[in-house]
């Protein structure tokens, strides 16, 4: 069976050993290929799955994609514990080792530049959710019963509406303030699109979805700063994820922020 090379990340050479039981996509063992002061972390994958046509077909399959994405992330996460890997996008595949070497040669300058930018840093994800129901529940014991009159009903509705309006306004200024505060503690920042609860399975509406590039030695302080805001505002939930490899900071186009 013909085998291709799936490359997960490019790093500087590192000495620490990876977890012994760490495997890549499809359970294959990981290999390091060094060229010109750069290391490509890769595993062998069957051409039957990662050749042009099969890969195209697989990418349409959300279950396959989920498994592959988790395997990809598991390798990147393991690398993050021993070095600062530059993660490649899912599905970066070469015919053989010499194809990988050619890539390291051709893209070397750009890769080195990107590696320098993220050196010593990890990425933290911070999301803010607004939860109108959670906020209203205690203040509205009457809502469960019937309104005594049409006027009561309208008054109740108005109160609920005003509560929701106030929550959105508060959520907006809270998110902006938090983002400004965290940006001051980060080497770089990216704003991602808010997530839809269908896929994230999170409750509430995602108001802020930010990624922050933070030095490893500053990470503890950064995390404490986020933790402090967690119960600050009723009806708003702050969620922290990480440490991630610097996924969101691997674009060569500098520090342009993505639209909300």
């Amino acid at each position: 069976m013909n085998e291709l090379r799936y490359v997960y990340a490019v790093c500087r050479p590192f000495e620490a050993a990876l977890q012994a039981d760490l495997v890549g996509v499809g359970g294959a063992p990981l290999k390091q290929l060094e060229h010109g002061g750069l290391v490509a972390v890769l595993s062998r994958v069957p051409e039957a799955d990662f050749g042009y046509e099969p890969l195209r077909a697989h990418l349409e399959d959300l279950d396959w994609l989920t498994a592959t994405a988790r395997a990809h992330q598991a390798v990147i996460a393991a690398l993050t514990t021993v070095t600062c890997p530059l993660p490649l996008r899912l599905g970066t595949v070469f015919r053989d080792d010499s194809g990988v070497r050619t890539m390291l040669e051709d893209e070397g300058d750009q890769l080195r530049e990107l590696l320098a930018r993220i050196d010593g840093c990890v990425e933290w994800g911070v999301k803010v959710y607004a939860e109108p129901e959670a906020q209203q529940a205690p203040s509205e014991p009457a809502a469960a019963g019937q309104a005594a009159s049409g006027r009561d009903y309208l008054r109740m509705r108005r109160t609920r509406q005003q509560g929701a309006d106030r929550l959105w306004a508060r959520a907006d200024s809270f998110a902006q303030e938090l983002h400004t505060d965290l940006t001051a503690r980060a080497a770089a920042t990216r704003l991602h699109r808010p997530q839809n609860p269908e896929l994230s399975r999170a409750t509430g509406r995602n108001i802020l979805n930010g990624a922050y590039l933070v030095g490893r030695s500053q990470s503890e302080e950064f995390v404490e700063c986020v933790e402090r805001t967690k119960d600050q505002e009723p009806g708003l939930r702050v969620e922290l994820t990480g440490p991630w490899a610097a996924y969101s900071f691997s674009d060569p186009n500098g520090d342009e922020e993505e639209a909300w």
Partner: protein
Amino acid sequence: MTTASRLPDPYGQSGGSANLADILERVLDKGVVIAGDIRINLLDIELLTIKLRLIVASVDKAREMGIDWWEDDPSLSTGARRREVDRRQSDLTRENEQLQARIAELEAGQGTRGRRKEKASDE
């Protein structure tokens, strides 16, 4: 040399079960784009990303696509309240029209009876 020793414990990915949306957002949409030998990477994954966005749609995207359930919930949206008022108004308008039609009908009925009476008195 950087090490992981000072890193706080992982958040939000306990047991390697990080939120799928968080993983896909990064693995599919971020990370360095390098043209491999299997040149499917850029364009096709971009297409797939667009498809995923239909699932991971943002609020604005969702609105563009016509997914706007929260706008129909009066407790979440002023737009829904406005529509609620509009709906009540159109209910009233319709009721008004029905009543006017009924009155016209009754008046017309009286009119014919009246004319019949006139006819009868003529004879």
